[in-house]
């Protein structure tokens, strides 16, 4: 996809904020993105707001506070990929010629504890089958069977991402941890310990999209960041462990994962392959999810996740750094904001102003989210 640039980005830190409403956080992020883009009232013709738990008219409440309404405001829910879905809609509308400038933002204030999802039916809850982390654990167990991944690898992913997160001012957890401490944290669902799971939390992020070639799209030194692909895909039936959380599936290993569907389409749209990527932010809902994502995005061959990790390729300084922001394991996961938070951090990577977490010379970046639905989004950014 050509023709769409990132004109401005803004973020409200991810964490727990007792004294701020979801609307407060949205206002903070949107104001920052509009300021960067040099926009005021009337500067955008449509807005898409991503949220999963925000409730009715979350986007309207944010823009009402800023006195910026009148244009279409659409709330978008696609689970963990809500922000990617909103980005796809905004970019598509610009490409279709409907608008020149679109505001895309995400807001979330998650309930605490194990997420209760209306996705499950009463009999599933009553049977003890609505145990969301257990589904992550079943996937982790299969990865250990199929890809030579061990619990030490799972702990290693947490150590890596928490080390990256130390330098991210917008992250919830900013201290390093060692593998022994990760493996010593409470066992939630074998093989997953508490620190191997990201924390649902709160936050907001915003991105201004603009048709490429307009004067203002090149405000930043070094030129604009281009949105080369913003793809959303759902699951194909068959895989019992895909994020659609079916009660059964087929004995068929060949069903492509929703993340693979999204990545394949995004690579085609952007005219690149996984070998062209300089930096990746991916869905590390749990430590195994990051390793599985290496395979689903084609960063390595199927079965190659453990070896890729062992070679240090995905740490800062490696061949293809993954989650230099610290990932969701450091930032926590505010569902509606998480995908756009990845875009914000990658825009900084491409501008070269990511500070201690900078991947030197980054020119091609990929953001990936996947979650309930199933919904998977892949975004490709270049400069």
């Amino acid at each position: 996809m050509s023709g769409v640039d990132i004109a401005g980005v803004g973020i409200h830190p991810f964490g727990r904020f007792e004294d701020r409403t979801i609307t407060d956080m949205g206002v903070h992020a949107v104001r920052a993105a509009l300021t960067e883009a040099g926009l005021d009232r009337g500067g955008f013709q449509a807005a898409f707001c991503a949220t999963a738990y925000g409730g009715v008219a979350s986007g309207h409440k944010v823009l009402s506070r800023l006195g910026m309404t009148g244009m279409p405001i659409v709330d978008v829910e696609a689970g963990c990929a809500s922000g990617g879905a909103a980005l796809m809609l905004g970019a598509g509308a610009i490409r279709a010629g409907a608008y020149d400038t679109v505001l895309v933002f995400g807001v979330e204030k998650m309930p605490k504890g194990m997420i209760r999802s209306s996705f499950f039916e009463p009999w599933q809850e009553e049977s003890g089958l609505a145990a969301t982390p257990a589904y992550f654990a079943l996937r982790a167990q299969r990865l250990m069977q199929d890809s030579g991944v061990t619990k030490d690898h799972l702990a290693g992913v947490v150590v890596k991402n928490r080390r990256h997160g130390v330098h991210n001012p917008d992250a919830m957890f900013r201290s390093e941890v060692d593998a022994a401490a990760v493996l010593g944290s409470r066992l939630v669902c074998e093989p997953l310990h508490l620190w191997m799971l990201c924390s649902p939390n709160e936050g907001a992020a915003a991105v201004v999209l603009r048709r490429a070639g307009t004067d203002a799209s090149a405000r930043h030194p070094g030129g604009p960041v281009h949105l080369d692909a913003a793809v959303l895909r759902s699951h194909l039936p068959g895989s019992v462990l895909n994020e659609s959380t079916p009660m059964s599936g087929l004995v068929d290993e060949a069903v492509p994962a929703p993340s693979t569907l999204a990545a394949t389409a995004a690579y085609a749209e952007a005219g690149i392959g996984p070998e062209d990527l300089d930096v990746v932010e991916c869905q590390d809902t749990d430590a195994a999810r990051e390793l599985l994502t290496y395979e689903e995005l084609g960063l390595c061959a199927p079965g190659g996740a453990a070896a890729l990790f062992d070679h240090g390729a995905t740490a800062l300084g490696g061949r293809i750094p993954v989650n230099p922001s610290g990932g969701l394991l450091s930032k926590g996961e505010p569902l509606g904001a998480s995908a756009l938070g990845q875009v914000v951090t990658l825009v900084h990577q491409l501008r070269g102003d990511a500070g201690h977490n900078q991947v030197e010379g980054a020119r091609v970046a990929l953001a990936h989210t996947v979650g309930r639905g199933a919904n998977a989004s892949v975004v490709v950014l270049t400069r």
Partner: protein
Amino acid sequence: MDGTGVAVAVREGLFTDSDPPRLLGSRCTSCGCHHFPRHDTCPYCAADGTTPVELSDTGTLWSWTTVTTAPPGYGGDVPYGFGVVELPEGLRVVSRLTEADPSLLSAGQPMALVVVPVGVDDDGHRVVTYAFAPQAEHGGPVGGSVGS
């Protein structure tokens, strides 16, 4: 778990009340794929014709974990096993497991269907759901029986 003699299923149409119980699935009359729970429309080929079937009560373990904290909406005991069992029909079914110790479970292990209590309803009846139990050498489930 307390409750009087009669056991009621957590939902009608999921499994039989026979001994051993059988999961109630369907088979697509067009592509032949099996489903659980039952579907009127095949989720694999979108055909409308399906045939109700009782699925095999035995299979092999494909993935497993342990639930240590009661998930939302669940009032039964913890910990409990949780896994995926492959049935001979070419179906992988998500299920509770009667074995909560992951060190006693392994890929390919033979499993057999049982029912387990998950609570008591407003009339004082035991509420049961389906689960798979590791299968003993002689073929029956280990440490579990219908309505146990």
